[in-house]
């Protein structure tokens, strides 16, 4: 039943895209400059899309209030990809067919961002994802950028930290998607190279909330540490169930578990979890504090790493647009993005490598202590 629905919806999108393409007129001088943003706004990843849109709106409002691009305001067109590659392709087609869209932000997961990326590669639109961290994402074409360090950067960092803390054996639990597999593999490679032993790598299907059988299975080898490659909702469940099953291993995770919600959902069981992170709301830097207080004021909620990634991604895109001016072409915007150097964002100073388009950021070490994220020196 469901695939048919999706195909029908695909047709509808395609028809809508066609209609837009036919009716779009060349931009008049006073019209705002347009950027596209694709993200999951419905379906079971919609909470991430909501955060991205919330963060993007704050950044965009501040940017337009400060004069926009030489007096021309910028507008973002949001589309709901439902975290589904098929939807994402239809949206990418729609954005590409609209000549006023100069650049695109999103999508959320690597799988979906890469599916859309194939379209942007053909149509020549710069795509900047706030979260797609699969190593292959930027290899799609020269039009792909991201504002998140990849697992090829984070895996070895956390692995080294784990080895220094005395762990000789580790078991990995990872979500079964492109991102989870690359996170597990990059980490396993580094851990083995640094002289440790990976006792098990277990993948689970997205949507799993019962980790008891996986935890029981990997518990047999009594690993010194467990590395969780997942998101905070699964993380909270896995940590609660590990506590129930009396698992004694030290817990480490990917930075994707960083969220104030993790502690609210997981309670005591989250204490002792260690992870790398780029964004910490407790950071006293003025740009971080401005973002945190504006986000809280607008949405009555504390921003997490995902919101911060989107906030900076939008900021980087807007800065690039400002650099090329209101008459910019899609190709000029791409080249300006590639020149991003030391962008002072809330996720740390970000530079893009002009060749690989990979971002460089500083990672921090964090641990949950007494129900709080604490940055370790």
């Amino acid at each position: 039943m469901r695939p048919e629905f999706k195909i029908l919806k695909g047709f509808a999108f395609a028809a809508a895209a066609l209609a837009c393409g036919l009716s779009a007129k060349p931009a008049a001088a006073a019209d705002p400059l347009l950027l596209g943003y694709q993200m999951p706004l419905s379906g079971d990843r919609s909470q991430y899309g909501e955060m991205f849109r919330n963060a993007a709106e704050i950044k965009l409002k501040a940017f337009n209030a400060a004069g926009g691009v030489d007096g021309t305001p910028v507008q973002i067109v949001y589309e709901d990809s439902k975290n589904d590659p098929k939807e994402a392709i239809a949206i990418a087609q729609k954005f590409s067919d609209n000549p006023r869209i100069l650049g695109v932000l999103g999508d959320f997961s690597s799988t979906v961002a890469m599916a859309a990326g194939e379209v942007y590669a053909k149509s020549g639109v710069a795509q900047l994802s706030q979260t797609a961290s699969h190593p292959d994402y930027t290899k799609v074409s020269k039009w792909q950028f991201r504002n998140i360090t990849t697992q090829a950067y984070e895996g070895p960092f956390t692995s080294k930290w784990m080895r220094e803390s005395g762990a000789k054996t580790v078991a990995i639990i990872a979500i079964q998607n492109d991102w989870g597999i690359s996170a597990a593999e990059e980490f396993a490679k580094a851990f083995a190279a640094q002289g440790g032993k990976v006792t098990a790598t277990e993948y689970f299907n997205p949507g799993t909330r019962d980790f008891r059988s996986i935890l029981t299975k990997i518990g047999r080898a009594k690993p010194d540490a467990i590395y969780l490659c997942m998101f905070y909702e699964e993380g909270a469940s896995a940590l609660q169930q590990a506590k129930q099953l009396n698992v004694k291993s030290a817990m480490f995770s990917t930075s994707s578990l960083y969220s104030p919600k993790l502690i609210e959902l997981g309670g005591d069981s989250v204490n002792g979890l260690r992870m790398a992170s780029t964004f910490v709301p407790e950071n006293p830097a003025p740009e971080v504090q401005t973002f945190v207080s504006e986000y809280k004021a607008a949405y009555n909620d504390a921003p997490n790493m995902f919101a911060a990634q989107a906030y900076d991604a939008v900021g980087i895109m807007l800065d690039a647009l400002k650099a090329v001016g209101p008459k910019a072409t899609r190709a000029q915007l791409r080249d300006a993005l590639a020149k991003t150097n030391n962008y002072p964002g809330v996720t740390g100073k970000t530079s893009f490598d002009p060749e690989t388009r990979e971002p460089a950021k500083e990672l921090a070490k964090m641990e949950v202590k007494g129900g709080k994220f604490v940055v370790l020196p």
Partner: protein
Amino acid sequence: MPDIFDAYFAQQVINGISLGLVYALVAIGFTLIFGILNVVNFAHGEIYTVGAFAGLLLIVGAAPPLLAVVLLVMAVGAAAGVGLERLAFRPIRRFSDEASLKSRAMREATLLSSLAVSIVAREVMAHVFGGEMRIIPQAALLQDVITLGPLTLTNGNLIIFGASVVMLGGLQFMLYRTRVGLSIRAVSNNVLGARHVGIDTNRTIVATFAIGSSLGAAAGILVGLYDGNIYPYMGFAPGIKAFVAMVMGGLSSIPGAVICALLLGVSESVATDFLSSGWKDLIAYGLLVVTLIFFPQGLFGHGRERV
């Protein structure tokens, strides 16, 4: 592998039984409704979610004892079930001649209308509450650890086990020892025949929905508190597994569905020991296919019709 049958294996069996009981709780209400209308109620998973959300709102708002929460949630579930019947089932049941009752098109229309209600209900909940997992007060969680030597259980395991036994027993009592049960069985056997002997079929069907949905809603809050997560999409996976258990059990046999749910849970959990856990759904659906090939009437079917 001589050392595979160790304490970890026993723990895996315990994990499986508790997973199976979760499926069983959902399957009981599912099977009851199928038994009377011969139609799959796709919205049962959403009733389960509604139950979990109603229970959570109660816990956050008033923090009553667990038994009171469960009873109130069952009342909410019953109301939701009656509403569901009104919305998705009754409009399509307005023709009651024999040809309409036996028509495939009618059954398929009902199936689709329940699917439509389930999608709308799920997305409305996601819109109102947001798509993310709700925060559950730590004290309300059914996750207190009970250690038995190398094995661990939680109080949630015991409560879910108790709830399954009570529900199954209560339902069998109701079906075979009360007037309502008698009329439910009569309608499920033959709608026209039941009407000819003076049974109010509409009322019986509404009663079935109320009972089945109250059980589904109770399952939702208990499992939500046991797993520690409540979110708008939580009903989907247990709904599918309960459906598989119902089909394996022979569609209208409630004890059959419960036994098959346990079988599914244990085989999924034990399979994780031998395969990557990403494959565990293969076990569930593999068992379904094997059952359909070798026991086309289900493991506990009464030879009424082929699954």
